[in-house]
């Protein structure tokens, strides 16, 4: 059986993943030319590399069409239910760090915690004739955090396909759930992160799809051991 490892196809995260595989003694070799979306590992037969976008990697892991993937934990947790039963987070790679956070307008002086937000959400409909609107592309993480962890049921999600941090200023939503690394974009848009509003501290991870065929496959253990050793 050929093992497929899905790696990011572009950007800083692609280079960082290649560096780690290099340090792990798993040097990546392109198949064909340098722009190719296929590769292999020098010296390790039966393993192929597929270069995909970070969000595709999460989806392919969920579908089980790849064996390993390097992608952000946020994307993996957003893309599948019962995530820990379906994939294993084998190693946290120390790059691509970003937090998924709940951010509200800075001027909401009375809202510092999720409990405050719960109060505001509960009264929102009576005051405004609509539910509190949250702009996000993280539907699942938002629901789990608001409903599951904080007992807040009454809000509406407004799907955001980009520039989420601009949604409150544009009047599209009241607050946002988004990813932030330095917080500067939030600040520039006059938003603040709630004190207990960090939903997930995400970073790039080596993720394995849990498959029965991996049992006793030495290559699987070898890849995990070497990547962990390179950190």
């Amino acid at each position, binding site marked *: 059986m050929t093992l497929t490892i899905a790696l990011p196809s572009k950007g800083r995260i692609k280079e960082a993943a290649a560096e780690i595989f290099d340090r792990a003694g798993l040097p990546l070799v392109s198949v064909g030319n340098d722009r190719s979306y296929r590769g292999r590992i020098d010296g390790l037969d039966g393993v192929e590399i597929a270069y995909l976008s970070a969000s595709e990697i999460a989806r392919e892991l969920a579908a089980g069409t790849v064996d390993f993937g390097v992608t952000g934990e946020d994307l993996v947790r957003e893309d599948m239910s019962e995530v820990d039963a379906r994939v294993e987070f084998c190693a946290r790679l120390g790059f691509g760090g970003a937090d998924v956070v709940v951010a509200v*307008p*800075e*001027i*909401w*002086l*009375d809202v*510092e915690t999720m*409990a*405050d937000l*719960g*109060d*505001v959400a*509960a*009264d929102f*409909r009576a*005051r*405004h004739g609509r*539910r509190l609107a949250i702009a996000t592309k993280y*539907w*699942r993480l*938002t*629901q789990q955090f*608001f*409903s599951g962890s*904080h*007992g807040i*049921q*009454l*809000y*509406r*999600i407004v799907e955001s396909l980009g520039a989420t941090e601009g949604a*409150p*200023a544009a*009047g599209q939503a*009241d607050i946002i759930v988004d990813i932030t690394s330095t917080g500067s974009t939030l600040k520039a848009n*006059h938003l603040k992160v709630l004190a207990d509003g960090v939903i997930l501290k995400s970073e790039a991870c080596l993720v394995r799809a849990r498959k029965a065929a991996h049992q006793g496959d030495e290559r699987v253990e070898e890849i995990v051991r070497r990547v962990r050793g390179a950190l």
Partner: protein
Amino acid sequence: MALIDLPDFAGTLLDEFAARRTHRVDTPVIQPAAPFLDMAGEDLRRRIFLTESETGESFCLRPEFTIPVCLRHIETATGTPKRYAYLGQVFRQRREGGHEFYQAGIEDLGDPDLAAADARIVADALGCLARILPGRSLTVTIGDQAVFEAVVAALGLPAGWQKRLVRAFGQQEVLDAMIARLARPAPMAGLPAEVEALLQAGDEAGLIAHVEAEMARTGTLTNASRAPQEIVRRLKEKRQLADASLDKAKLDALKEFLSLNVSLRYAPGVLADFARAAGLPLDGAIAGFDARVAAFANAGAPLADITWRAAFGRPLDYYTGLVFEVTERGQHKVLAGGGRFDRMMTLLGAPDHIPAVGFALWLDRIAAALSPAGERTAP
């Protein structure tokens, strides 16, 4: 297809509904999604089947009947009181069982005698189940948010805390966290110095001016979301909430109340004893509870088979009083669930307040309970 998998007892059930003087209604399978998401929250989104029209409007396959029946009542404006019955398919994404299954139930709208209507709806649910499952021993668990609200009010907490606790009713973990927090004040800090000074001086106009100026400076719309007045008012309320706490005796009383779980026969006495021991003024709630128990007895509901669990509630803002579930004795699968939802009709757009109470029967579970071997003995 639909005719084939309709449960065998559907005809019997419809007869029973008619005998209980209800008006049978049907509603379209394809429903606008917004009312369901607005009422039940975003959690529902992953459990229903959503689609979008060409113009971008969200529709879903009917996930339940209460909202469609209520919307239909509002549209047809036929007046109250009304007793509606339904039987039809609902569609939900479920981990176990099929995605499409039958539900039936009664919605009783507009009876101002709440205790009588509560008792009647529980008797309806039990009567329907007894007709389909003759000879089976059924048990009812009831809860009542109104009693919890009375207990919370009697503790003497600020209104904001009362609302918080009532909102968490039915969610034990959230309540536990709030109870832990209430053991001591949690002073609020970290406000900008200028705001802190205005707040301490009680200068509401100054605070509003400050918030307006900041909004103008940052280009924030003052009419799109929360207005300056709203922010300032809650800031003042929050200071009160932060300073609030409960002494140990009151916290223990709250915890004890939430652990009450007794047969309805003894519930009035237990509640009265609790109020006396805790020193809480609950006379109104006790009187209401007594009236309910009397109404249950009048409606012929078997008090011995009904248990009152003080912590039983549903965390949705339209449930206001009674909630109940019926199971077979010794089984955990809920065969019928219902409650009072007095706030729903106006939330859905009814011009007047309409008291409402109802229940739904889980026909697939009832069918499983009927089959001789199968699921009944499985854990």
